[in-house]
């Protein structure tokens, strides 16, 4: 995934906190960990066949982040004929950190924000981000 912009597609779920964890992880990658190397687009734009969104997703590596087992982000990406390079279920990150229970749906609280950090950092390692390299050198 090193040479192209990676498109991270979180699901649109707002019934449980895991959708928001996926979205916040996406923004963390875009703005903090991998600026210039990660982008996103609206899942709904993909669903209406918006040409710009479809082109972006088809021509770049894609990571989908789904809040639940319905896998809406992955399935919507696949519906335009693109297989995601990586399909992540946010709930699996929580299963490895059960002490970090989000305290709200959109306001995740400190535990939820920690989950965001963990998920975003894991993904950044796969995207070959400059910030991650600098961090690794300092460690």
């Amino acid at each position, binding site marked *: 995934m090193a040479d192209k912009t990676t498109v991270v597609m979180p699901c649109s*779920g*707002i019934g449980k906190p895991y959708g928001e964890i996926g979205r916040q992880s996406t923004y963390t990658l875009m703005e903090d960990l991998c600026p210039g190397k990660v982008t996103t687009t609206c899942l*709904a734009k993909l*669903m*209406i066949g918006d040409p710009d969104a479809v082109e972006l997703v088809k021509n770049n590596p894609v990571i989908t982040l789904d809040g639940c087992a*319905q896998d809406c982000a992955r399935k919507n990406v696949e519906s335009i004929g693109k297989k995601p390079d990586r399909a992540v279920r946010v709930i699996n990150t929580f299963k490895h950190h059960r002490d970090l229970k989000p305290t709200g749906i959109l306001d995740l609280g400190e535990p939820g924000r920690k989950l965001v950090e963990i998920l975003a950092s894991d993904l950044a390692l796969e995207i070959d981000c400059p910030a991650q390299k600098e961090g690794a050198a300092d460690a």
Partner: protein
Amino acid sequence: MLELVEITPPKKVGIIPCNGEELPEGTLTRFACRKVLDQIKPNNTVTICLPLFINNGKEERGFVENFPTITVDGCDKRCGQKITEKLGGKKPEHSIVITDLLKEHGINAPGSARTLVDMDQEAIDLVAGEIAKKVDEIISKPNDGGK
């Protein structure tokens, strides 16, 4: 003698935000919808997960077929409205477009899709209030506009 009173369940309205992840206005649809669902009209509203439509979400499609809906779109692409019409098989009762609503009221859009700040509260309140007003219009209709 006992007087029989018919108890009817509250009418339900589906709120369908676009949730646009790319735009601050998409984030605004989420916050405004949650405010309506959690604080303003908790007994009369449910939310519908838009991507589940295309994912054959039986509950979502069934709800839209049988109940009135309000779509809340962040921009004039109107993704939520279009998907609801295409896959739900009917037009939403009301369609709100955030960019139009903010412009009409002279309120600035949030500056970031990532998080909303205190100064965005006015925009959240405006959109949530508009949704709630439309919910009231629907549930006050006699014999239709909700079950």
